[in-house]
């Protein structure tokens, strides 16, 4: 998709049009705990969106660093639901296969989802095992911590799946079908 089509998707399908109300006050970037590490703070990101430079936005690490703390959202004087736009930008970036090269979050999210799709639930181990394939260094760095947890009997190795797992999977499958046709 080109910039114009991407902007249309963001603004029409995902309610990004409310960014037109942004007064560029910078309250969001000022209250964001991760802004110092972001390629663009939320304020700058939204200005780029209005200008239509969507490819630049989708390459940024900004939305991947967003921890959903809602600090920005509750302070925005224009009532822009900033955190939700961060979610949207992650979705569009993945759909378009565009990604900041340093971003590790999709690997973590997918590991999490792998466990949910299979069992309907997660345990720390079920996510970590999947994540370890994708980002071994992050998991190795936590090996010492894992040992401390194991000693305190805090690691659950077995996932106790949803009881009606067949039913659960049917519901999820139907949801995906409905999403495709809509």
């Amino acid at each position, binding site marked *: 998709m080109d910039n114009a089509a991407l902007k249309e998707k963001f603004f029409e399908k995902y309610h990004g049009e409310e960014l037109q109300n942004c007064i560029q006050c910078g309250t969001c970037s000022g209250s964001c*705990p*991760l802004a110092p*590490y972001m390629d663009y703070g939320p304020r700058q990101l939204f200005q780029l969106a209005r200008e239509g430079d969507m490819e630049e936005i989708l390459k940024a690490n900004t939305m991947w*660093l967003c*921890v*959903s*703390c*809602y*600090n920005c*959202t*509750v302070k925005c004087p224009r009532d822009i*639901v900033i*955190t939700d736009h961060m*979610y949207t930008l992650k*979705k569009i970036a*993945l759909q378009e296969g565009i990604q900041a090269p340093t971003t*590790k*979050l*999709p*690997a*973590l*999210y*997918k590991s*999490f*989802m792998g*466990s*949910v799709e299979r069992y*309907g*639930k*997660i*345990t*720390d181990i079920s996510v970590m095992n999947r*994540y370890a394939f994708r*980002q071994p260094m*992050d*998991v190795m*760095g*936590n090996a010492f*911590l894992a040992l*401390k*947890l194991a000693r*305190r009997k*805090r*690691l*659950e190795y077995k996932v106790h799946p*949803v*009881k*009606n797992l067949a*039913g*659960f999977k*049917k*519901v*999820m*499958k*139907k*949801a*995906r079908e*409905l*999403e495709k046709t*809509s």
Partner: protein
Amino acid sequence: MKYGFFPGCTFKGAAGYKESTEAVSQILQTELVEIEDWNCCGATSYWSLEDLPALILPARVMALAEKHNFKEVVNVCNACYSTLRKAQDKLAEDERLMEQVNEALAEETLSYTGSTKIRHYMEVVVNDLDPEEIKKHIKVNLKHLTIAPYYGCQLNRPWGDIDDLQHPVMMDRLIETLGASVATNYSAKTVCCGASHMMPYEKNCLPQIRRIVSDAHAKGAQAISTLCPLCQFNVDAPQSALDLPDIPVLYFTQLMGLAFGLEEKDLQLKKLLVPFKMAVWGG
């Protein structure tokens, strides 16, 4: 009083949260009945990657609660709490999504109307119980213990309808009811713990943990109390990397248990990474 209970995935593995919650809810007779066959709420992962499935996961939990006639769904995790509430808001304002969610849930003969009220157990204890009734169960005097009440993000934000957005006081009130002292002006109470970013982005999140811990020290606290498994873990686990004095991070239910005279082993205090020893404060 009877509540539908949604434990969430991390409850069981959390350091004594399950044991202490079960013990105090029995004492206080807040009957937490587990919602049968619950699934993961999806948390930030699903909101980040999916549209409809991100709504289906919390909707299924609430539909199961409706099926068993629960009027209220009680959470013990901030992320579960906010995910359920967020799904409820989104479905309430979008008829088409509501239809699609119900079409998918029909595969399991479930249906969702949005009739359940979403709550957090801490807030249930503070709002549904008479503090004088809670005080009747106190067996141990905690007045020499000063607690920094740490709330994290997703209990009050983005709604701000059950407490103040930046400076909530509900847990402060609970701590006072229990006879302990509240660290005054604990301004880090709603600083984000970094949530799931602590693993991939630990370096970027540590400054927040430093602030949560150092502010607790600065305000004279001997322990931090939490109400979410992710918050507890993120503030407890990385302290060795902070070059600050360690401070134990307890669940509010463990603190209640201590006041009610329960044993350290009933509350599984040994599962905490930074140890908490009641004897140190004399009880």
